[in-house]
């Protein structure tokens, strides 16, 4: 009675459900090749994908496997194909394990690929569920294959290391923004169709990484963050250096903390000396207006921060000196911002989002102007203004230089 056919039916159905699906799409951990960084480039009219694979035994510390193998923590695999997914599929021909791109943190794009256009790359990322749009993007002038095969000190997993590098940089100095695939997709599809991607470059000889090289205290080649790549409609159109990149970051209101060096006389005429101002809090307010057919954008940048070193005769007790100090910082900041502006103005690429501003302010006129926004952008008059507040000067009020001379 307990096991009557009536009662057995649901149990039977349940068991069938479990058996029929039979661990469908099951992937054991040991069947995976974990990708930590990917490089992409164009070669012979084909896509070339380079995968940086983690070697688990060498990467994981303190496993009780016992075999502390001294092999490199990563290995690199390059595959080619007509399309990105074709190249990805070609992996099956040479790799015993299935590529696991869910934990891929870094995507390095060669400049050839960036010039060719990234639209199909964005498409595969949005289309396939395995890939994550939160992957950090970089453009490199070097061979991405070499970039991806570099080893790092302290970080066993290079992909993770590069990811940390850009994250920390964005947080602390804000020169280069961390850009992920989702940002690129939204910015490229935005009103201005322009986007930025930070540069990753190899300083030194540019040879593939080897564990032997890590036995020395310096390596012949090393990964560094470079400038900022400017993209228009998904294609690379130009580069900014780091100072220009910082200027752009201020206009885009993407600065968390920044370090600015400036010249300051310390309230006296004559000899100026370098000092450092660390921005701890800044906001930029953009306003657009039209005057006699010209578009004018005003940017009001407010920056707060502290003085962290000075070679000048600074006497922070005197409010007049402080005002002068703020003036000095402001002048330098303005110079940085204008430098950035001139760079993108020259490239006619609106990466600062003025198109959105226009669209929001003059929605009717936008329809007419949007085709020729690059021309309109070139005609924009940009009027930045800067307000700097020095909140602290550190533990001493007067500079050491001044103390010595008294």
């Amino acid at each position: 009675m307990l096991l009557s056919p009536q009662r057995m039916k649901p149990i039977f159905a349940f068991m069938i459900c479990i058996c029929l699906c039979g661990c469908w799409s099951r992937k054991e951990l040991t069947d995976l090749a974990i990708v930590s960084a990917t490089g992409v480039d164009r070669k012979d009219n084909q896509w070339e994908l380079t995968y940086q694979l983690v070697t688990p035994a060498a990467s994981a510390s303190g496993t009780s496997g016992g075999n502390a193998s001294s092999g490199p923590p990563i290995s690199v695999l390059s595959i080619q194909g007509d399309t990105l997914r074709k190249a990805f599929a070609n992996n099956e021909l040479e790799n015993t394990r299935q590529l696991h791109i869910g934990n891929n943190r870094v995507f390095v794009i060669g400049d050839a690929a960036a010039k060719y256009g990234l639209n199909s790359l964005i498409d595969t990322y949005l289309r396939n569920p395995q890939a994550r749009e939160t992957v950090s993007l970089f453009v490199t002038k070097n061979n991405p294959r070499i970039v991806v095969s570099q080893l790092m000190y302290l970080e066993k997993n290079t992909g993770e290391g590069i990811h940390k590098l850009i994250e920390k940089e964005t947080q602390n100095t804000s020169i280069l923004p961390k850009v992920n695939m989702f940002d690129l997709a939204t910015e490229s599809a935005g009103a201005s169709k322009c986007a930025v991607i930070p540069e990753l470059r190899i300083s030194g000889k540019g040879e593939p990484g080897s564990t032997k090289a890590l036995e020395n205290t310096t390596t012949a080649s090393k990964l560094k963050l470079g400038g900022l790549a400017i993209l228009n409609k998904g294609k690379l159109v130009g580069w900014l250096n780091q100072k220009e990149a910082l200027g752009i970051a201020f206009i885009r209101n993407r600065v968390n903390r920044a370090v600015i060096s400036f010249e300051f006389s310390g309230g006296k005429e004559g000899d100026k000396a370098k000092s450092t101002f660390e921005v701890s809090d800044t906001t930029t307010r953009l306003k657009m207006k039209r005057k006699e057919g010209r578009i004018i954008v005003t940017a009001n940048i407010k920056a707060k921060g502290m003085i962290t070193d000075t070679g000048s005769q600074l006497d922070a007790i005197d409010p007049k000196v402080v005002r002068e100090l703020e003036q000095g910082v402001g002048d330098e900041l303005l110079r940085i911002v204008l430098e950035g502006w001139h760079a993108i103005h020259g490239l006619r690429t609106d990466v600062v989002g003025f198109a959105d501003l226009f669209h929001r302010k003059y929605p009717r006129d936008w329809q007419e102007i949007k085709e020729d926004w690059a021309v309109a952008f070139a005609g924009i008059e940009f009027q930045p203004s800067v307000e700097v507040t020095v909140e602290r000067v550190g533990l001493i009020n007067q500079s050491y230089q001044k103390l010595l001379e008294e």
Partner: protein
Amino acid sequence: MGQKHREKMPQPLSLHLEDNLASLRAAADKRSDMVIRSFHVPTVNQMEYALVYIEGLVDLTSINESLLRPLMSVLSVHDGDSAERFAAIQNCASAAGPTVIVEDMESLWQQIMQGDTVILAQGYRQAVASGTSGGEWRSIAEPTTQNVIRGPKEAFTESLRTNTSMISRRLKSPNLRIQNKIIGEQTQTSVSVLYLEGIADDSVVHEIQRRLDRIQIDGILEGGYIEELIGDAALSPFPTMFNTERPDAVTAGLLEGQIAIVVDGSPFVLLAPVTFFAFFESSEDYYQRFYIASFLRLLRFGAFFISLLLPSLYIAVTTYHQEMLPTTLLVSLVAQREGVPLPALIEAFLMEITFEVLREAGVRMPKAIGSAISIVGALVLGQAAVEAGLISAAMVIIVSFTAISNFVIPSPNLSVTVGLIRFTMMLLGGTLGLYGVMVGLMLLCIHLASLRSFGVPYLMPVAPLIWSNLKDVFIRFPLWSMRTRPDGIAGKNRIRQKKTLKPQPPQPNPGKE
């Protein structure tokens, strides 16, 4: 066979003592522990008497000193008529304990088996049974399953009367009702139903009585028999009655309107109706400050979910959803599993079964070699299996943490249930991934929501939601804020305490100014 027994007409006692003793001897054929002590008192009519009892069930001193000695001395000088003499016998018997007059063999036998001493006399169709029950019982000891750090340290014993006395000593209210029943054709086990009149719901009391009366079985050896025979949801793995060996827990239950069932011969007392959340309560929750108690409660709920889900989540995430893991963790898990020959599901099953075997062995093991088990279990199976590369270290961590979490659940019968469901969850996690685990959880929720314990929804304060009862579910509110008894369990008398019990700094007396 119980049926046949019942149909037999009770055999009345004979006028002749010899006949009665003969039929007693026939009934107690090959029972060497029945003692028949015949004596005659040299009076005018040379009366013959006999005392009948079962050795071991009676208190011999009380028979000798309080029953036999006064009986002999009274009877030897007695010269009244037959009815007066019988009254005298009954009088004397009262000195040893409560008396019952029996008129047939059936009930005579029943009284003897309860530990009474029956006094038979020549020329009477009646006999006097005197309550002399005694004998050896295990003395009151500390609880073995539900220990506390702070709180009473005594536990129930196997003796029904001792157990009910431990409750009535704590609950001196005249409203405490103790109703006895005899269940079991062969074992004739005494079962007591305890409740507080007015506080317990009358309909539930009647229901429990009705279900108890329905039982016709040859024997009741433990409360578990009762639980399985009268509990709701006979096929559910979840217990619908609470059992405890702590008198304070039973008292607290009675005060909340629950009904206790004490079974002779078992130190575990049943409480009903009960909700799912009662299995997460320990009596210590009320003896500690409410912050600590609430923290421990939440911890237990956490441990419940860990114990239920951790292995299945591990299997699901590592075989289907690797992208959910942070890279560093993923890499270290892969490194550990490198070279492990079994798929994660099988590996987990093996380890879980190994643990269940160890646990069962630990319970059955003689105490002296119990420690050997833990060494074999922990060292040989854990460490050696990892070192040999058969099992990954992460799996050992998962299984041991699951096992330890399982023991955090205060009620052993719920923790075993959780262990069972865990295996189903693992199967679901290993075949359908997180989706399967979610399906399992849904089914579990549906099942729990469908359960009832004596008319009380199993998930009660949560579903259906009763705000006032939530004071004592996930967080134990301060005692002074728990003004009412739990809604839905308790009967008419809801108010527990005065409203303003929260301690306040003394107010300056305005009259004295």
